[in-house]
Each structure stands twice: as C-alpha cells, then as structure tokens.
C-alpha cells in the first residue's frame, strides 16, 4: 500500500473545453497505428469502466487480428449505482469521445463505431446525433472512412458487461458469454472489437493531444493519470470531480465528507464498503484491491454518515443485484436471492447470527464460480459490509 500522505489533487482534462477536435483528429490520423499504440502504452492508461485493463494493450491486440471487419464500441451503459460521469462527458464533450473512437478505428483498422447508450439516457440522443452528424461530415471531408451509430439499451444493468452488451446488440437477451475468447479477437458479431468506457476514450483524447507524459505524470505507480469521481450520498457537495489517482480515502473524506462520515462505498454496489477506521490505510487506485473491480463502471464514491443503517444499505444493494442478475448461471441467480433472504431472516431473528457466516461462505462461492463480473462482485459489498458492521445486521 502507498503511504497515506498523498494529498487530494484536482485535475482538469476531461471537461476542459477545447474546440480543436478537428485538428487533433487530422493530426493524430497522420501517425502510424504502432506509434499511437506505443503512446497509449507508455501513458499506462487503464480502463476507466472499473476493470482497469490496459487500454493500449487492448487496441494492440485488436490491431493484430487479421479480420477485415472490426468494430469500435463505446460503452455508455453506465448503470453502476452511484455513477453518473459518462452522461456528463457525452453531454459536455462528445467530440472528444467521437474523435477517440475514430482514432481507435484508424489504429485497429475499423470503419464502424457504435455507442451503446443506456435507455435511461435516451434524452441525450438528439444532441448526440447532431454531434455525430457533424463529426461524420468532417471525417468524410478529410477522406477518413468512419461512421458511428447509437444503439439504445433498454434498462438492463448487466448489458454494461462487455459480452452481454454484444449479445444485446445482436438482438438477444443480455447474457454474458464465457471468456476467453476476449472481445479483442471475438466480439460483436464474432468480429474483433475494441470496447472502451466513455471516460477511457475521453482520456485517450488527452493523451493524443498532449502526449503520454502529461497523463503519466499524474497519479501514482500502477495508477497513472486522473479519473472522474461521481460523489454522492451524505456529502455537502455531490457532483463529478476529476482527481488524480492514488489519494487516500482519508483525504477524500476530509474534502467531501459532512464531518460525520461512517463509511464510504468505493466502486458502487459491486465495489467495497470501507469503514471509518480504514480510511487512512485505503488508497484509491488500481493497485489496492479497492475501486471498481471488474464491473462496468468505476469512480462511484458514496458517503454514508452515522445516521445510516448499514443493514438498509446492504438490503438495497442485494435487492438491486437480485433484479439485475441475468439469471443465466446458478451461483448468481440463486446466490443473490439467498443472500437477500438470509440477511432479512437474521434481522427478523428467524436465523441466528451464525447464519451470517454461512452467507459469507456463499458470497465467497459466488466470487469463485459466477460466470461474469456481476455475480463475482456481489461478495465485495456483501463481505465488506457484513464483516465491518456485523452488529447492525443482527440488531
């Protein structure tokens, strides 16, 4: 763990209003794909959706595929509770995302991009379509073949999981596939596909414009660059903030807490709950086990003060997972149901407190055996809440 001496540092790249996307696009397209991949690799940018896969490597793997048809997909199915940054990016700086998609197309050899937009954000469509139209017009003007379509989701959290998203785009139930094969070789329509989170794409814009060093210089080892944080809950200033990675949770709470912060949920319902006594030792970045492990979104920070019942919080999460589990694999389908039923039974006194240990074992089994990130990460919030606030589960 990094020592907790790191100060909260604000950054301002994503939302910086830069009206130069045409210049950035045409200049970047002049570079060889290999140079651009190297630039991304040396920035050490990792996926901002939560899973943290190195973006440069993703583009590289896809570029090495022989297929004639490839796809670039922007994952805007932002569904993790407590996350709302992608909507803001698509509202305020859509051209950065579109430019990054086209550059990705240039790097991997693809002429087709899609934005998978969650149904809840349908109101964004008119403005986004206008931006795409203007963008495509410019691409045509400079002789670069790339088109972008919006594909609407219809209210399914699981479709933020990349392979479930492909299934959904192919007109099927959004049920995740087995991995491997990975999307870089077999993705949408079984063709090589790069699928990136909205924020990840916006960061590549910064990297292509300013060079990788500017990005690499932010953050700490293994967690380079800045990241958008969606701050909500018991805080006097909820909103979206771009911060350097590597901060200690204590510094974060000093800045955003209401003076009575009891716990912080890092990474949404699929992330971890950190109690007050662990604020000092917890840092936010990829290196620790904290922040968005392997699920669709990252950057969710929900603060709870001492007026909140952690039982109610867990009950709410489990109800969420219970509804959003795709039902395909039994560990997740049955596991979510039993965890929810189980904590209610303990609370009502129908089961003894020891039953919580059985439930913890069940959540461990789900972590090991569920097919995708959803089922695997239910245990994150479950175990971190039950272990740290056991008495609140019982009484």
């Amino acid at each position: 763990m990094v020592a907790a001496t790191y100060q909260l540092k604000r950054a301002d790249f994503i939302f910086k209003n830069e009206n130069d996307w045409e210049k950035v696009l045409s200049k970047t397209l002049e570079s060889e794909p290999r140079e651009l991949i190297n630039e991304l690799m040396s920035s050490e940018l990792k996926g901002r959706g939560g899973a943290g896969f190195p973006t440069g490597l993703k583009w590289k793997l896809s570029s090495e595929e022989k297929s004639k048809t490839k796809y670039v997909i922007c994952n805007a199915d932002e569904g993790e509770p407590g996350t709302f940054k992608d909507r803001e990016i698509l509202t305020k700086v859509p051209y950065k995302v579109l430019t990054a998609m086209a550059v990705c197309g240039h790097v991997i050899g693809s002429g087709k991009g899609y934005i998978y937009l969650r149904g809840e954000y349908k109101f964004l469509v008119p403005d986004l379509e206008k931006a795409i139209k203007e963008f495509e017009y410019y691409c045509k003007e400079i002789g670069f073949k790339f088109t972008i379509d919006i594909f609407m989701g219809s209210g399914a959290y699981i479709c933020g999981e990349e392979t479930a998203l492909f299934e959904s785009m192919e007109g099927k139930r959004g049920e995740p596939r087995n991995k491997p094969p990975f999307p870089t070789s077999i993705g949408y329509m079984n063709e090589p596909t790069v699928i990136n989170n909205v924020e990840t794409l916006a960061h590549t814009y910064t990297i292509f414009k300013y060079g990788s060093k500017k990005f690499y210089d932010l953050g700490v080892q293994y967690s380079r660059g800045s990241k958008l944080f969606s701050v909500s809950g018991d805080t006097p200033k909820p909103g979206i903030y771009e911060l350097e990675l590597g901060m200690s949770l204590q510094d974060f709470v000093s800045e955003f807490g209401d003076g009575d912060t009891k716990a912080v949920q890092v990474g949404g319902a699929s992330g971890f709950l950190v109690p007050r006594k662990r604020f000092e030792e917890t840092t936010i970045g990829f290196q620790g086990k904290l922040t968005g492990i392997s699920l669709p979104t990252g950057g969710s920070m929900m603060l709870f003060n001492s007026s909140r019942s952690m039982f109610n919080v867990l009950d709410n999460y489990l109800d969420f997972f219970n509804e959003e589990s795709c039902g395909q694999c039994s560990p997740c389908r049955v596991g979510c149901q039993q965890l929810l039923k189980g904590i209610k039974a303990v609370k009502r006194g129908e089961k003894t407190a020891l039953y919580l240990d059985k439930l913890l074992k069940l959540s461990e089994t789900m972590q090991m055996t569920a097919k995708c990130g959803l089922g695997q990460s239910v245990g994150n919030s479950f175990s971190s809440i039950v272990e740290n606030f056991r008495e609140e589960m019982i009484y």
Partner: protein
Amino acid sequence: MNPVKDLIKTLADEHGRSRENLLPILQGVVEKEKYLTEYSMVEIARELDLPAAEVFGTATFYSFLEHKKMGQYVIRICKTITCAMKGKNQVLLAIQDMLKIGIGETTPDGKFSLLETNCLGWCHKAPAMLVNDDVHTELTPESIREILSSYMKK
C-alpha cells in the same frame, strides 16, 4: 390494416430484418404503443422470420420493454441507494396519494403508470425519476405535485 402491424413493418423497413435489428424494433413499438402485446411480439417474429419464443425471450429480458398495459406517461422512480436515502419514499407516497395507484398500476383513465426502477444515474441530484424519457431530479413531495399536474394538463 392493423396499425400495430403497419408500425412493425415500417420499423422493419427502417432498421432491417436481421436478428441484430430486433431490439430497435421492439423499442420502436414500445415508444409508440407503450408496451408489447403478445400480438405485437408474434407479429415481429413473423416479420423478422424468427421463432416467437426468441422474440418473447429477448423482449422480457429488458426492464424498459414493458409487456403489460402501460399508461400514456410511465413514471419510473429510482429506488437505488442514494435516492432511497434522500427521501424517495416520501416522494412515492405523494405520487400514490395524488394518482391513487400503487406500484405497477395504471390510472383508470390510462394516463399514468407507476413503476420503481434501478439507478438512473442522478445520485448527485437524488431523488430522481423518469416520466417516459424526461428526467426529473431533486424531487420533493411538493415538487412532484407540480410536475404531475403539468403532465395532467398535457
């Protein structure tokens, strides 16, 4: 001819008749009709030359593709953690008091349906709800009355 049948044909002409066009077509029907009837699902299956079970299986997976009769305005109030913490229940009570319907019900005049939904992505402005595609945030029992009144007048 049957208007739903016409609508499905128009949508298929616009989007295409391959499997990957299924979701946009289902969404198009829901946008116009508010929900999918068994008839419209069978009709889509026929138009796209798919087994009806596949269409039904896909349609019922997605929470925004309703297959129960819905009113003209579908209210979806967020019940996930931050909205729940910031007074969603009081807002819900105000809605139920005003419309005299429970969750999952539609007003007798067919104007409103009331549903709960999962995280809408407005946690920093909780509690939030959708009325069809329109977003309303920072709801209070007072503001909800004004909002619903404006839809009643439409």
